[in-house]
């Protein structure tokens, strides 16, 4: 017999459900903990420190705290006070006694704002007779200390929290009196590099789409045997070192390379007029397109594979010309794959480093190369971080845009 008793009320039912679910939730959480920690340590924290480093630099203020305070009080117009000069010299020399490397670091930071400051500060450190009145002594050491420029530079670098790196990443700088001015044309290099990077990424994405679409189409509609073979060929570059692939392009494109030799041999070009295809923008575009092509083909292939074969036939049977059938029926189905491929290639291209570094020469350098330059050569990590953060924001904006236009849920990667 069926019985309607013993049915618990709604509340206890939901409590029972919660109890039953809790165990599964804990289990699921425990399973993802290792990955979570890994992501936290290797991804979230570095990015957070990147963003932080772009706006925070305490090299100066840590070594010369009193000077920092006095510089902030200074209006940048009146002559500097003896108090400021005294504090600067004593704190600098005190810092040297604690750690000899610190004053050099401080001097480097100042030097970035005002070239030539490094040697003057070193003079201060090595001078034997630095006593009150410090201002006179400084000027006696080098009459540059009488000019406001070096003090302005110090006022700019003194605050720990500063927008100057982000401003510099956007070709602007802050002056001693706090106004923001745009960089002179000679020094305005970041925006140029940003726009060049975006342009290269866009061209590479377009080239990948144009080259990848037909291949993905043929792969998706070939017999299994052929399509597997093609898939292996497409994936082959993935199994080869990126460095090898890139240097292979050097062998192909350089002036005494395979392509030039071939063109000379068949008489298309004169031996004295070999084409310059290496160490320029052209080489960057070619090599990057080659390296990133699989990232376009794979999502396209997987999406095309899932398109029902008889849709195009249905369109034809309904009177559509082959072009209309392709454009109105087939192509719209490939949008999720095309979108995913484009987003993937574009994001990878925007941050691409090794290929432009190797084949790009001067005109083929991208924003990532300038980040590496500041990380490794000038050791201006704050600027590198600021540029990196702006790049990250750009990519996130793009992602947001893609989500608005296509919808991230429609993205199919494989």
């Amino acid at each position: 017999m069926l019985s309607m008793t013993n049915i618990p009320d709604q509340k206890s039912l939901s409590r029972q459900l919660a109890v039953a679910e809790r165990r599964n939730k804990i289990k699921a959480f425990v399973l993802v903990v290792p990955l979570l920690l890994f992501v936290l340590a290797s991804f979230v924290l570095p990015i957070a420190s990147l963003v932080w480093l772009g706006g925070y630099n305490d090299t100066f203020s840590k070594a010369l705290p009193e000077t920092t305070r006095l510089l902030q009080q200074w209006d940048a117009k009146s002559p500097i006070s003896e108090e400021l000069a005294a504090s600067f010299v004593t704190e600098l020399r005190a810092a040297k006694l604690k750690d000899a490397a610190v004053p050099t670091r401080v001097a480097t930071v100042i030097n970035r704002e005002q070239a030539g400051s490094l040697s003057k500060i070193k003079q201060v450190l090595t001078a034997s007779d630095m006593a009150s009145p410090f201002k006179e002594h400084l000027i006696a050491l080098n009459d540059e200390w009488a000019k406001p420029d070096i003090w302005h530079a110090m006022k700019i670098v003194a605050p720990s929290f500063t927008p100057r790196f982000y401003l510099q990443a956007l070709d602007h700088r802050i002056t001693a009196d706090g106004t923001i001015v745009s960089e002179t044309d000679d020094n305005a290099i970041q925006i140029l590099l940003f726009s060049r990077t975006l342009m290269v990424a866009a061209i590479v994405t377009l080239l990948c789409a144009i080259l990848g679409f037909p291949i993905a189409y043929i792969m998706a509609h070939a017999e299994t045997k052929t399509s597997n073979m093609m898939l292996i060929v497409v994936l082959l570059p993935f199994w080869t070192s990126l460095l090898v692939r890139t240097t292979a392009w050097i062998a192909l494109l350089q002036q005494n390379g395979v392509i030039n030799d071939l063109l000379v041999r068949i008489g298309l070009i004169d031996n004295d007029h070999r084409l310059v295809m290496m160490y320029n923008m052209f080489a960057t575009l070619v090599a990057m397109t080659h390296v990133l092509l699989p990232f376009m083909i794979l999502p396209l292939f997987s999406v095309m594979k899932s398109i029902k074969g008889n849709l195009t036939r249905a369109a034809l049977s309904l009177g559509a010309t082959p072009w209309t059938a392709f454009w109105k029926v087939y192509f719209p189905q490939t949008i999720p794959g095309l979108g995913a491929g484009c987003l993937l290639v574009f994001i990878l291209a925007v941050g691409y480093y090794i290929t432009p570094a190797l084949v790009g020469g001067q005109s083929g350098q991208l924003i990532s190369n300038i980040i590496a330059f500041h990380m490794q050569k000038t050791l201006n990590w704050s600027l590198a971080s600021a540029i990196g953060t702006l790049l990250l924001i750009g990519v996130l904006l793009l992602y947001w845009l893609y989500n608005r236009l296509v919808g991230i849920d429609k993205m199919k990667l494989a």
Partner: protein
Amino acid sequence: MSDGFVRFENIQKTYDGKSLVVKSLNLSIGRGEFLTMLGPSGSGKTTTLMMLAGFESATGGEIYLDGIKINNIPPHKRGLGMVFQNYALFPHMTIAENVAFPLKVRGVSKADAEDKVRKALDMVQMSGLQSRKPAQLSGGQQQRIALARALVFEPKLLLMDEPLGALDKQLREHMQYEIKHLHDRLGITVVYVTHDQSEALTMSDRIAVFDDGRIQQLATPDELYEKPENSFVAQFIGENNKLRGVVKEISNGRARVEIGGNTIIDALPIQAEIGKPTIVSVRPERVEIEPSASEVTASGRIEEIIYLGDHIRIRMTVLGSSNFVVKVRNRSGRRTFTAGEEVRIGWALQDCRALDV
């Protein structure tokens, strides 16, 4: 019946250059006819339909539509409506856009198109779903939309490739009647491909039974069922009892067939030669148990009785064949049977056909 609205003349098709998928096919389909191509998979029926639609090219022979040779006309210029397996609705378009598609590519004005779309959807009882996407509809609804889309531009000919294959049994039967009524109402010529014989029997004016790249028999449903011309057709359409034997004599329109080495029964000689083996075919419902007066009689032992509601299915051993099935109508006052019982059975001569092996 057939004025040759669609004509296949000596059509051949090979995919690999070695074996023929369609072997010298000749078929003439009349205007307004509902013709079904029926056969197992790999029999060439779908290939034949695809050649008619223009998606496959014939490697030999000619196809005529309304007197015009269409071999070299691309599919989009043939003006045929087609309903595909799995519907083939365009997933990114709404129902209205799907149905309007053939009108749009033909440059029909928007107002006209809207009117026609509405009528087409009314016709398949699907009005009110215009703004939905195909994925939001059930299989049966999608099938109706596909039908509306194939008919909305008033094609000369409607091709259907196993259109009901993905539906469940009940819906399939319902749709069969609906398609048949639609055909009756519109008078359009339909070429329908299926492997489901009951579907073919239900809807068709004529059925072409395909096997091994050939038409085995082309006939109306009743003729096909009652007068199969070879054992493939007898096997493929409906249930069939097979008695293997050797033709001893043919005279007066009767073949005398020796079965099991010692019994001789009479059968209609359809494909029988003296001295050659033959299969005698009898439909289960044409066999009478304890017949009052039958032209052909035999004895059998009841092996198994299955109660099926409207009829009783009795499996018995007859002339050495243990798979001989008899269907007895379940009318009131019928005789009861028990397993192991020996009974006399009999059937009319015209229901008993000696066919090829």
